[in-house]
């Protein structure tokens, strides 16, 4: 099976170009059977990649320590779920990426086997061109089946980085990759629309759900990464503005902008060029993120060790994508003129447009900050890092306005809003927000950003409530009960009302982010029996016990915790040293409530059993994870349509 997997990768070099050539020939010569062959080649590529994935999994499970990747990423003792987590290493992660791309290509082809026949040959060409790039990388640059030097064989491997051996890591990278890769489908349809001139609504209607799914997976992946960093890395935070974190955020922001602006095209036939450009930008940023991770041009905790030219391959790939898409877009621009124009600045179109500008500004700032070390190195010879304060300085005000627009957008009317309309829609949410703002001020909150985020968050919650309330009232006028009216409202306007749930999740996350302003951090050396007061908490150090494990050694401190004088429990932060990887790890202990986390790490242990502790009080941090859960609920409702009541009910496609 392993050998089969190895050679399956090489077979991709036959079937990917074959699919592209036959698809182009089929499209040019108007031979549908040839296009069908190209589509079959797409299925074949997916089958080959699946065989390669299974082959690598078998190699990992059967301890094939004659394969360099298995040696570097597995041991005989490694639990099987982590053996199967092949994305822990460079080669495996690229294979997973390629497999997902193959899966997406096969699904897109299957979904459109009887429709979009003009677009499909070019969709196949685009998907297979992307896949061919990865196939070349996998075969010649970063082959997961590459053997050790001739005659070499290890009796055991070095194993996966222990920091990665965490349940969140089983889901975080695949979800991120799924998000990145899924954007290839809307990108390919957009590209096909540009090539064929089929610039109507088909391409974005067909890919609406693909885009949503990609955006959803990427969002969940980013959030799981934050949760993993919080629980495992032991630095007290969840987001460090690390270049690779930023690289995953950039396409998500571009995707968010697209999901909003495409609604203007749906309803008003406007922003056609902009929407195409946005989907091109989103996918380019996905690949750019991979380039950042694998090129070594930025220093990151996530970065893979690679030669510079390896990154150059990805840079070439990104540039090729951007250049191709831009040329096609310029070529087709005359056919993409809008039928409508912006009627008023007080309209939903305008608020969505403003939202897009702000997302673009945020993308530019984050991109600039991420690349700043590389830019300064080129200009001055010295790398200057753009730290969190740089990002926060710009992201703060932009996010604030975005939050305001999150409230305004849903309530304001299409085309133009009248004063009466505005007063009617915003009176209650604005009053609620003012009330909350005043209460926060009375309560002693005098710091601008958290106050503004919480007040605007209240405004958004008010608008969401207003939308649901008025919607239910409208349905109740038709004689429906409250519950029936609520579910009918959700079912008949599922996209809109599920979208509001996603907005609610964003508000909840901003509540968590706002809490970060009040984070408290302190370090202390404690002798056994000594107490330490921090905020409303008291910690008593009750001793340390050694950790004796087959794979690591270390120490675990026992800390009794009180909050406002009431006992909370025993916390046990750990410091470990993993033998196999020569890697230390700091495992925090956390006491969580909805209002705050008490987060403590063991930073050092002295000969007299004194321990050095670092503690953080992170207010409201759990609202971020709650927001994440609501984000999943909202997106699930967006993606899975509730059953229709009537046979004749309209179907929504895409």
């Amino acid at each position: 099976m392993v050998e089969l997997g190895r050679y399956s990768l090489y077979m991709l070099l036959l079937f990917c170009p074959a699919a592209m050539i036959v698809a182009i020939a089929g499209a040019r010569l108007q031979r549908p059977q040839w296009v069908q062959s190209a589509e079959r080649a797409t299925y074949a590529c997916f089958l080959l990649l699946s065989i390669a994935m299974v082959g690598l999994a078998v190699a990992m499970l059967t301890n094939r320590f004659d394969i360099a990747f298995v040696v570097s990423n597995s041991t005989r003792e490694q639990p099987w779920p982590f053996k199967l987590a092949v994305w822990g290493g460079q080669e495996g992660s690229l294979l997973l990426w390629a497999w997902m791309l193959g899966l997406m290509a096969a699904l897109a082809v299957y979904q459109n086997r009887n429709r979009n026949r003009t677009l499909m040959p070019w969709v196949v060409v685009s998907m297979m061109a992307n896949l061919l790039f990865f196939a070349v990388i996998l075969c010649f640059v970063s082959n997961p089946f590459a053997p050790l030097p001739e005659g070499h064989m290890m009796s055991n491997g070095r194993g996966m980085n222990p920091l990665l051996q965490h349940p969140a890591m089983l889901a975080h990278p695949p979800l991120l990759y799924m998000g990145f890769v899924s954007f290839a489908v809307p990108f390919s349809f957009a590209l096909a629309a540009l090539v064929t001139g089929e610039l109507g609504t088909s391409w974005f209607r067909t890919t609406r759900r693909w885009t949503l799914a990609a955006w959803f997976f990427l969002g969940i992946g980013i959030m799981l990464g934050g949760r993993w960093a919080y629980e495992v890395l032991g630095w007290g935070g969840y987001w460090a503005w690390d270049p690779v974190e930023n690289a995953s955020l950039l396409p998500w922001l571009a995707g968010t902008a697209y999901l909003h602006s495409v609604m203007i095209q749906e309803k008003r036939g406007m922003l056609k060029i902009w929407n195409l450009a946005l989907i091109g930008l989103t996918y380019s940023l996905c690949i750019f993120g991979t380039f950042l991770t694998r090129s070594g041009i930025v220093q990151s905790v996530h970065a893979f060790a690679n030669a510079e030219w390896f990154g150059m391959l990805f840079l070439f790939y990104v540039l090729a994508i951007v250049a191709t898409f831009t040329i096609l877009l310029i070529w087709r621009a005359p056919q993409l003129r809008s039928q409508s124009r912006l009627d008023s600045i007080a309209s939903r179109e305008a608020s969505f447009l403003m939202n897009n500008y702000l997302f673009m500004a945020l993308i530019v700032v984050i991109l600039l900050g991420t690349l700043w070390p590389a830019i300064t190195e080129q200009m001055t010879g010295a790398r200057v890092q753009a730290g969190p304060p740089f990002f926060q300085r710009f992201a703060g005000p932009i996010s604030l306005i975005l939050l305001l627009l999150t409230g305004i957008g849903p309530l304001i009317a299409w085309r133009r809003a009248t004063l009466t309309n505005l007063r009617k829609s915003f009176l209650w949410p604005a009053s609620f927000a003012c009330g909350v703002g005043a209460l926060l001020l009375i309560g002693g909150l005098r710091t601008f950003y958290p106050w503004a985020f919480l007040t605007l968050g209240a405004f958004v919650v008010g608008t969401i409530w207003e939308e649901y309330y008025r919607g239910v009232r409208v349905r109740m006028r038709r004689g429906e009960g409250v519950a029936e009216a609520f579910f009918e409202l959700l079912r008949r306007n599922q996209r809109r009302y599920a979208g509001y749930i996603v907005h609610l999740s964003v508000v909840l996350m901003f509540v968590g982010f706002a809490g970060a302003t009040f984070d408290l951090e302190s370090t202390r050396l404690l002798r056994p029996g000594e107490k330490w007061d921090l905020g409303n908490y008291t910690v008593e150090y009750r001793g340390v016990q050694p950790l004796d494990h087959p794979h690591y050694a270390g120490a675990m401190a026992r800390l009794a915790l009180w909050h406002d004088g009431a006992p909370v429990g025993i916390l046990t932060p750990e410091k470990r040293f993993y033998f196999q990887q020569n890697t230390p790890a700091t495992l925090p202990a956390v006491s969580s409530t909805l209002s705050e986390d008490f987060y403590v790490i063991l930073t050092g242990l002295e000969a007299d059993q004194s321990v050095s502790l670092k503690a953080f009080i992170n207010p409201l941090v759990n609202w971020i994870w709650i927001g994440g859960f609501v984000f999943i609920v909202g997106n699930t409702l967006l993606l899975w349509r509730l059953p229709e009541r009537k046979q004749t009910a309209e179907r929504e496609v895409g």
Partner: protein
Amino acid sequence: MMRRALLSLAFALACTWALPIHAGSIVGKVVHSSGERDVSGLTVKLFAADSKGGFSTSETKTTKQGEFQFADLAPTRPYGVYVEYRDIMFPAEFVEFKPEQPDETRSVELTIQDPSEDDSKVQLFEARTVVDRGEAGSYRVQQIFYMTNLGETVVYAKDPAGSLFDIGLLPKHEGVEAIQATANQLSPARLEVEGDRARYRGPVFPGIQTLEVVYEVDAGGPDLASQLEFLTQTPQFVLMVPDRRQAVYAQGLYPSMQSGQREPAGYQYFRGYDIAPGTRVDLRIEAIPEPAASAVVAAATIGLLLFGLCVFVGMPIANDLRGTAPSSAPDKPLSASDLLVASLRDLEHDYEMGKISEADRDQLRRELQREAVIEMARQREAEAKSLSPAKLKAAGTEVGAFCPSCGGATSHDDRFCRSCGTKL
């Protein structure tokens, strides 16, 4: 004639005598750390590397004041100056003559001290064993001990018969023979090797030192099955075996990477930490045979897979070229009415919620219908391109017009809209 020759010889000799002699000198003094001990008559040795890779040595004795001198030293390679005191060779001072000042006199000072018997500051911090396969059934085992003396005094074992470190290797393994034992910079005489055991009694100077013992082990075959025995508390142990297709089983040790190493290179590493005296680690090294001839099966499977996929992919083209292709499935375009219906539904909802005026609703509705009509016309055109004339005619009866109320697609025969039921 004879006289002329003698004169020439005398002139040549005179010239030789007059030429500068490139030879430096080392003058030095031995000082006792306490400043009170007699430092006269101590042996001072001079080591110099020769051009053949060996060493040349010379020695002298100190004067009453502890002074010594080595003269006529050619500016070749670095010289090492050692002093021997109470059977201990104290660490060297090194002197190198610069080519531009070859005949300079350099002075050195050598400090000696009485050895201490307090071994509390002497620690072994790492032991390293390298096991490599040698000639026909033999293994070459190299043991390196890294020890540190955190004090300021040279340390010796208390008991002349005792030792600071006991080094065990392959207990009760027959055919073990030490072939080389060196204690870097130290007195080799203090390292006693017998069979598979070595004892080191000191001295251990302040700082870090290494101790190395190399054994030849007759394994009796290509595989080695033995034990490593630890006689001294070992904070960190590293076993290194070249990764030449040999499986290494070292029970209780952890396979690992060398620091900073990501990819496998050269050796298989196994580490152990805080190993107590008396610990024995089973060690097996077995050659891994080349894989059996499953390559044929693999090649056949790969060939079959490739053939199957080629047939699967190529079949539609082959059918097309032969003219036996079944008619391809008709293109079912996304109905523009779906989008229109959803948008109209949203519009109505906004109107009912009081978000838009009636005039705006009507205007937006017209815009949506116009967009849908354009889209459907575009789709029909695309469809027409892909259909034969007969099918086109048939299709013409299928797609008729659009509902004026909801924009849904209708056929010419329809009397009511299929989507909203409006009379047409």
